[in-house]
């Protein structure tokens, strides 16, 4: 009675186990439909597992870093989760600060300005201003060193290198 007056009655199909049985195949009877039956319960179960898995593996920190095409980050095992800090990118001798291409000579001045703004908003006395450097793995270290030194001169005590987690 319940199934006849409910929405389930309209949407459910004949049991697939019943129709696919090899011992007593009802599907073999004359006049029976040859359409495959669909087990909605197992489909819902599978979907639920998939949703749960994807929710767990989903990043809830949002997009922190955009890696340009042609940039291959170095890989490392002993890493920390990437946090949102001031990002400096090096790509083929071009330097960009927060996705805006800049003149390398003005880097220190711009970093000093950012550090000043950070100091005005920061309330934690233990916190240190941090910088994230993103570069291709083939970049010579002297280019990285220039940014590390500039960051240090501007008052950034912590330098983070963006890497791929192994």
């Amino acid at each position: 009675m319940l199934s006849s007056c409910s929405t389930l009655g309209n949407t459910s199909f004949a049991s697939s186990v019943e129709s696919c049985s090899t011992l007593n195949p009802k599907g073999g009877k004359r006049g029976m439909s040859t359409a495959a039956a669909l087990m909605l319960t197992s489909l819902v179960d599978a979907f639920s597992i998939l949703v749960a898995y994807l929710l767990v593996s989903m990043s809830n920190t949002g997009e922190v870093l955009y890696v340009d095409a042609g940039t291959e980050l170095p890989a490392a095992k002993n890493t920390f989760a990437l946090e949102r800090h001031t990002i400096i990118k090096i790509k083929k001798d071009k330097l960009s600060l927060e996705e805006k291409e800049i003149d390398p000579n003005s880097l220190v001045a711009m970093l000093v300005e950012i550090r000043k703004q950070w100091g005005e908003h920061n309330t934690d006395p233990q916190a240190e201003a941090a910088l994230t450097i993103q570069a291709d793995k083939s970049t010579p270290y002297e280019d990285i060193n220039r940014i590390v030194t500039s960051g240090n001169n501007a008052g950034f005590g912590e330098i983070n290198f963006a890497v791929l987690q192994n």
Partner: protein
Amino acid sequence: MSRGNVKNLDSEIDLVSVISLQSVCICFLLMTVVWINIGSFQVKQAVGGQAAEDTKKEPALWTLVKPDGAIELRLENAPAKLVKAFGMVIKGVEGKPNLESLKQSLGQLKSELPEINMALIKPESKSAYGEVIRLMDVIKGEGFASLGVAPL
């Protein structure tokens, strides 16, 4: 009151709408899922970051990369016996640092001096950034939690 007037309290979930909702969720999550995990390697500027009197006299390992890929190890603020034993040069292999030998030496050092946590790295100016990160990764993997880079 007759039995027929009793309201049926059983309810059912409409599976079609559940499946539709889950399909939308799966599509959204598949499109937004992060397949590549990006992490960060935290270092500090080894020299010039703070005043000399603020610097704690704790044991530190200096790792200097030479142009031929050799790694020079130098211990500071440690017992003289260990400074002598671990002051060594690890020869490079095909112009690149020999990370396996470095790993062994660091393991020995860590067993002799467990309180050592600081390692300072001075790479060669022409070293590839990827090689420097690999070197740092090996050092960090051996239990050196505090890493610093020296300016060139």
